[in-house]
């Protein structure tokens, strides 16, 4: 019987080694270890043994069974691995086939740049506000110290709704300075982006409707040094920390002193020349005009009921289109309002 068991074992181990599929293995398991299997058949003969032999044989039989079971598990694992491997190989795909297309919408490039600017200013403590585009001439001109008869009030420059020129399409977001100062007490920090309108035919650099971003700060002890600091900080945030800027005196009726801020041309680095030719970006100037600014004119403060001997402030206004076009190298203003999907999809 012992010999019988040994034979079963040897035969079984060899058969298991030879098995090559999970089905063959299962067949062997039934054949060897099942209720009607070879081992069971041998064990059924145990009753015929003497009481002394039985434990010895039982032990041997159990060992044989354990060995076969262990082998079976081992074979299962290795065949399982092979089967998986084959399955995975069969499932291989061409990973270079494009992914399923998910169409995402695009933010208009100008609002993309505007959002960035707004976020920067909010972080600096500015309140972002919106205001009416159909506006009183009083807010757009008079209270900003722009006198009657000033050329910018001409009907050739400004769109009017009334015979007495009292209601118009705002020509500048500076009207928001007046509205904000009227409704808020210093200290105040305002940012007012929005649409403005001027009577210019649309071309590569003009549009009868465009966007400005107005900034206003009024508090005690505000100086021109503070204004410079804010503007330099902003421009370096938008155009990079190596952006070189300069300030030039200028004139606006609602600020005094007034200035304009230029950025050194990113293309020619201020030389005005590229490859021996006049730089096409700055037209040889070496600088690109970015914005107008200045200290709020005392008359404007007083017009809004703010004591100009106690408070001072600064204001600045920048053209959003120019900024977006500069940032994104867009060469024609008309593209901005054309809204061609092929244009929008680029951003």
């Amino acid at each position, binding site marked *: 019987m012992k010999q019988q068991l040994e034979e079963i074992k040897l035969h079984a181990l060899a058969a298991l080694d030879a098995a090559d599929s999970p089905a063959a293995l299962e067949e062997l398991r039934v054949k060897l270890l099942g209720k009607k299997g070879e081992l069971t058949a041998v064990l059924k003969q145990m009753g015929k043994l003497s009481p002394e032999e039985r434990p010895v044989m039982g032990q041997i039989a159990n060992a044989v069974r354990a060995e076969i079971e262990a082998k079976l598990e081992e074979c299962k694992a290795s065949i399982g691995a092979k089967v998986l491997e084959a399955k995975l190989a069969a499932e291989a795909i061409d990973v270079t086939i494009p992914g399923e297309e998910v169409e995402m*919408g*695009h933010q208009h490039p100008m609002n993309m740049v505007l959002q960035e600017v707004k976020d920067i200013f909010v972080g600096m403590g500015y309140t972002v506000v919106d205001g009416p585009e159909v506006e009183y001439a009083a807010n757009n001109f008079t209270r900003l110290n722009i006198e009657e008869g000033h050329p910018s009030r001409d009907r050739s420059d400004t*769109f009017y709704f009334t015979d007495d020129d009292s*209601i118009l*399409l705002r020509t500048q977001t500076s009207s928001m300075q007046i509205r904000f100062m009227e409704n808020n007490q210093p200290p105040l920090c305002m940012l007012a982006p929005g649409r403005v309108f001027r*009577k210019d035919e649309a071309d590569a650099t003009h549009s009868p409707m465009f966007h400005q971003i107005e900034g206003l700060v009024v508090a005690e002890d*505000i100086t021109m040094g503070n204004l410079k600091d804010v503007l330099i900080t902003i421009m370096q945030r938008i155009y990079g920390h190596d952006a070189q800027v*300069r300030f030039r005196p200028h004139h606006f009726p609602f600020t005094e002193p007034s200035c304009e801020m230029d950025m050194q041309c990113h293309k020619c680095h201020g030389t005005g020349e590229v490859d021996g030719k006049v730089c096409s970006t700055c037209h040889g100037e070496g600088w690109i005009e970015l914005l107008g600014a200045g200290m709020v004119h005392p008359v404007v403060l007083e017009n809004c009921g703010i004591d100009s001997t106690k408070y001072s402030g600064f204001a600045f206004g920048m053209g959003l289109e120019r900024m977006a076009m500069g940032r994104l190298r867009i060469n024609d203003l008309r593209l901005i*309002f054309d809204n061609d999907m092929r244009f929008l*999809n680029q951003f």
Partner: protein
Amino acid sequence: MKLNREWLNKEFVDLSHISDKEYVEKLTVFGQKVETYERMDAEIKNVKVGKVVSIVRHENSDHMWVCQVDVGEAEPVQIVTGAQNVHEGDLVPAALHNSYLPGGIHITKGKLRGVKSNGMLCSFAELGLTQNDVPGAYADGIWILNDEACAPGDDINAVIGNDDTVVEFEITNNRPDCYSVIGLARESAAAFGLTMRHHEPVVKGSDAGSIYDKLDVEVPAENLCNRYTARMVANVKIGPSPKWLRHRLRANGVRPINNIVDITNYVMLEYGQPMHAFDYRYIGSNKIVVREAAEGETLTTLDGNVRTLKPGMLVIADGDKPIGLAGIMGGENSEIMDDTTTVVFESANFNGTSIRQTALALGMRTESSGKFEKNLDPMMTLPAVQRACELVELLEAGDVLDGIIDILNYVPEAKELPLEADRINHLLGTDISEEDMIKYLNLLEIPVENGMIQVPSFRPDLNLMADIAEEVGRSYGYNEIPTVPFKTSTQGGYAPIMLAENKAGQLCRALGYSEIITYSFVSPAIFDNIRLPKDSVLRNALKIQNPLGEDTSIMRTIALPSMLDILSRNNAYHNKKAKLYELAKIYLPTEGQDLPAEPKMLVLGTYGAGENFFKLKGELEAVMTGLRLPKASYTAVKDNPSYHPGRCAAVSINGELLGYMGQVHPLVAKTYGLECEVYCAEINFSRAFEMMLPEPTFTPLPKYPAVTRDLSLVCGEEIPVAELENVIVSAGGKLLRSVKLFDIYRGKGIEDGKKSVAFSLELRADDRTLTDTDSEGVVSKVLKALEEKLGAVLR
């Protein structure tokens, strides 16, 4: 305003040691921004004075000549010319091999009918000059330089006077004084810390008589004419001006005409004071009257145009008719001619606004009106007329009569301002000493006496401490002012509606919509384009009184047409599909208000494969859910003329109409050139914003499982799904947690006029697992209600 550096250097302040680049940069940061600058010799290269050593007939031509030209080199150069006015010994401009002429013309050597020509002899026109620049020169041939004091080999640029740079400044409105060479000389000198030279005009006079015996001046329009100054010149000899004067005019873009006219232009450039010269012969009644034009009065101006005038326009008239349009242009009837013998010089100060408005109304902005509209210094008329007379004597152009007529309708007031050094430093954020401030002001020719600033008449822009601060600041250097951060106690942030706008944009983009930006003003044709009824209140739009054109003449009261416009444009660009959104302001006139309401609309628009009503509806619902709006209800709208009558829904929240969505009416789409199906939604975003629900709080997750029951119903075709859903929800009670439509079927097995609608109901209790009895109870209540209310039964 142009300025040639030669004039500045020779007459006022010598900055010839400063390079062009350094000069323009300095002036720009000092506050006189340079627009452009140009070397006058930039265009002409390698053109020399040549002496014609010999000239012989071309062997193969009966009109060309072969010249041997001495250009200052060892050997003469052979040049073929077709001109007939060249003779042996003449000095001529010779463009040599590899030379450049104005307009980018490149001259190289070549052969003319088999004979070598190593360049070209030039006419003055080929050198960029006009007959006015070189009076007396022969126009139809080579420019003969025999009288130009030059020698073979000289660069032609030196002969022409091109050894100069012209700088063009952008002058700000508040600095009329800088529309003059003297004003810019003042700024230039101050920018470099130098003092400029001034020249006091001296008129010697003559024995030709007195102006008072010959001319009367009356100024009835005294509020439009601050000052009128006149002098007269007799025994005038009209002729060309000398070269130096012509050069300065040409450099500054003024065409030389004759000595008298050139003098008025020269003084205008130098002093910034426009002047005019009248031929005395044509001043009727020997009287000048400065008055408003009469209605319908006409004047032929110097440019040959007949101008019809009206009151409010200021004219210079004689005893009976206008002879000039004040401050803008003279009249043809009193023009200086070659035989003019007696001249009246006018040097006046007119009201700037009046001049500007007249020039604008007549569409004739001139150099002179451009200056007057800036409101010039009335103190300038006298020195200017004196300078003109001085130049007459210098040029020997005539005899200046005794006397000056000077009518002053204006009382000059001395203006004083205290120099408040502390306040100036406080505003600038600087620490500049009072001494330095005085030094800066003095360099700008602004005197300071005993702490009081004596504001000169040429600086009307200086009225307050802040104005002085600007002068000090720019002299100190804006770029030198230290930058100092300031601490603010304000809390920054967005207005809540802006946050909602951002959110709406993000949601739209996530759904594949791209953002557009369109004009606020539109054409009145949009109303018909979208088939808006004639009596619609939306046709009541704000009208721009002076629009650029009809297409941009009214403020939009509805945003749909702007979207259709852009969809149409994209279709025209052959973009196969478009998915666009805009947050568009509309402008609604409001009873009792001066200004319109300006709500924002959220507009979605699509066309292209895969777009349909339910896709758009699903996307709109997603946006509204994302904005945390209460559930919207949709009702069929058959009578919105802009939309397909069977595919349009009104969108409402809490019973309030917020907008419409659906397929754009094919007729409307066609009007916009769109043959495909177009889908749009327009929602009043400003109103929706006010309905946004507060941020949600946490609801505990369910502890007990849900049971799902599917109901396949058969009902009349006319019953909207929303009604079935409403009945199910209200009958379902609190155990019913959700109802979802999953199928609609018509056809085999369903009788005509009916449809099968299948819903999936989710039932759940918070405190126990539902039993079959519970769910059967709900389902039977739902079925009963469906049958009773809508006649819908289980299929």
